[in-house]
């Protein structure tokens, strides 16, 4: 039934486009839409925002007349958080749906599986949320082959830097903290993150007392918290994304007296408060944007429009996916074409003020080729805290709204 219908639809569409061709000849060709495939984890808290944000960006661009008269068309695929499903979706997007570029996934393992396909099928590919260093390192290692992949989010190395920069100002300078324990899940993205943490935390004045890596399918965090408490650190530096709700709730239920600070991807989504029954209170997490935080003039309007349309604020990958649609459109405009190689060349010259800051990509000679640049004036990331059920920016001071505060069970060892 479905195939008959779609067959009929195709005939009608074919006839219509034939008609359009005959009347407008050359103009009709130019007005073919720019197709962007969006492959994401539609059921996951961080991934659900990706296709929604991309669609929002496309709708806005189209309402403004599109790119030189060409509309942006978003075709989305649910990958069920699986690499195999993502690869199939990528093949289908390129071979059958004829997309010009792909935006995909916040999971590093998935992105690393897709990267060779972007090279084989010569299709520009941007990830809105994966962090592994390997993504952009492979571009550097074999540029000609892998130049189609762009890393639209901070690398784990840059994320570690962002956390350390914030830790220095907030924890060391203000609260005189001296020691930390790193707690991270065992996944591709945390390996370089942990290396980064181990290197930069001592530099900012936090001695690393212990380093705990745990399996991402851990459900009981009691032993982990007990072990951490045993080494008496001033702060727990987190690197968690696949888990989030469970460690946070158990941290609160067990009244672990040590603050959590670092990366906690699930905490970037507004629904995290409800999912944890507000156990998130006091959790400090790194983000690239947050509700009500004017990183750039575009950040707040985007978050509000998103909430109006979808009922909640976007996750971090929503912000990046929204920006990505815009700068892919911008690159297509500058290139005057959607030819893959021309699009890649134009993307490399991207200088786009988005919702997360000013987006530029590292060049061919940088070890992190095609990853977005980290630094003041570009993208520094933020530190936010859950306070009274809301996500509030506390760092950097240009956007900070308030001071850090902790629930009563947190016993700060220093002042």
């Amino acid at each position: 039934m479905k195939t008959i219908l779609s067959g009929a639809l195709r005939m009608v569409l074919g006839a219509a486009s034939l008609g359009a061709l005959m009347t407008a000849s050359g103009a009709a060709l130019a007005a073919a839409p720019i197709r962007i495939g969006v492959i994401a984890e539609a059921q996951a808290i961080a991934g659900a925002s990706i296709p929604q944000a991309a669609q929002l960006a496309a709708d806005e661009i189209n309402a403004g007349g599109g790119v030189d008269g060409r509309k942006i068309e978003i075709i989305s695929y649910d990958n069920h958080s699986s690499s195999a499903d993502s690869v199939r979706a990528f093949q289908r997007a390129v071979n059958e749906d004829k997309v010009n570029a792909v935006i995909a996934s916040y999971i590093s393992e998935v992105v690393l599986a897709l990267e060779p396909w972007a090279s084989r099928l010569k299709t520009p590919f941007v990830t809105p949320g994966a962090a592994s260093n390997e993504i952009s390192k492979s571009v550097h290692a074999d540029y000609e082959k892998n130049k189609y992949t762009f890393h639209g989010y901070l690398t784990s190395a840059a994320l570690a830097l962002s956390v350390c920069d914030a830790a220095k100002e907030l924890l060391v300078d203000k609260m005189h903290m001296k020691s930390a324990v790193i707690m991270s899940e065992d996944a591709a993205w945390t390996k370089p993150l942990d290396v980064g943490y181990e290197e930069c935390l001592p530099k900012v004045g936090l001695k690393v007392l212990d380093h705990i890596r745990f399996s991402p399918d851990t459900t009981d965090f009691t032993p982990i918290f007990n072990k951490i408490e045993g080494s008496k650190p001033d702060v727990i530096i987190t690197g968690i994304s696949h888990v989030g709700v469970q460690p946070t709730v158990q941290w609160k239920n067990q009244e672990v007296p040590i603050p959590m600070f670092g990366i906690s991807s699930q905490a970037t989504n507004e629904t995290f408060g409800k999912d944890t029954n507000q156990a998130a209170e006091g959790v400090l997490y790194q983000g690239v944007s947050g509700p009500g935080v004017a990183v750039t003039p575009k950040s707040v309007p985007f978050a509000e429009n998103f909430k109006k349309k979808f009922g909640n604020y976007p996750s971090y990958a929503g912000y990046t996916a929204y920006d990505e649609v815009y700068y892919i459109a911008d690159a297509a405009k500058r290139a005057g074409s959607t030819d893959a190689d021309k699009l890649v060349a134009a993307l490399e010259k991207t200088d786009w003020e988005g919702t997360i800051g000013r987006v530029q990509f590292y060049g061919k000679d940088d070890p992190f080729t095609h990853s977005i640049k980290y630094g003041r004036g570009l993208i520094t990331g933020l530190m936010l805290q859950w306070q009274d059920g809301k996500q509030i920016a506390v760092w950097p001071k240009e956007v900070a709204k308030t001071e850090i505060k902790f629930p009563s069970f947190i016993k700060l060892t220093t002042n």
Partner: protein
Amino acid sequence: MIDGFAISALYALGATGFTLIFGVSGVLNLSHGAIMVAAAVAAWAAASILNVGTYAGALIGVAVALVTAFATYFAVVKPIQDSRRIPNEEKEIFVLTGTLLWGIMIQELIAYFFTNNAKTVLPIVEGVVDILGVRTPKNEIFTAIVCCLVIALLWLLVNRTRTGKAVLAASMNPRGVTLLGLELTNIFIVVWAIYGILAGIAGVLLGMFLGVSSYSVGPLTASAFSIVVLGGLGSVSGSLIAAFVVGYLETITAYLVSPAYRTIPALLLLVVVMYIRPQGLLGRR
């Protein structure tokens, strides 16, 4: 150690229902994990979306598990058992596959409506107490007490009431029970009801204690399955012992070795027991 006790008691509660069903009706219910998760997610949704309060939420969770258990029996298990087209010797395989698929269906429905994110049920008792220098959440103690109470009630039910005795008899010799003039189907319904309530309580407590997501379905079924196999299929007391062995082994591994290897020793033990004593610790067959 209290942590280990609470976990073990939870495992025991989950596995008891599972083994009871197998003992009485020979059904290995592979949708077990899905029913537990459904209970926890229902309790979460009732408490935080509908704002009915913690107690009512927990009750709704148990009720949902009961309904789901009956649905499993009437929509999946019974049609297969009553079917004339499936040869008797293949029915067990059909039931296995049927309940497995049913479990996946429930899991996907939960993921679709509530995302695959972990949910946690608000604890009934908040706060912590100090026991011998270890800060223990009161809810953990509550969990352990409820589990013990429920298991004790179950023991009373099975050994002291007429219905319970019928259930026990059915698990030993189903044909004998029918000869005594008892309707086997009624016993099955009673068993599934007990099972639904047990799985519901276990699910809600698990939701409070550790939190569950649609991803937990597989591991929960697997843990119940391995506990029951370890203890001896169909033996309730065997399952209880096995639950504590597995619970403590996991906790000790997590504390002394590394949280990353938590489940491995228990699985190794299972393999060893399978070699030495294939019928399980207290298995009859």
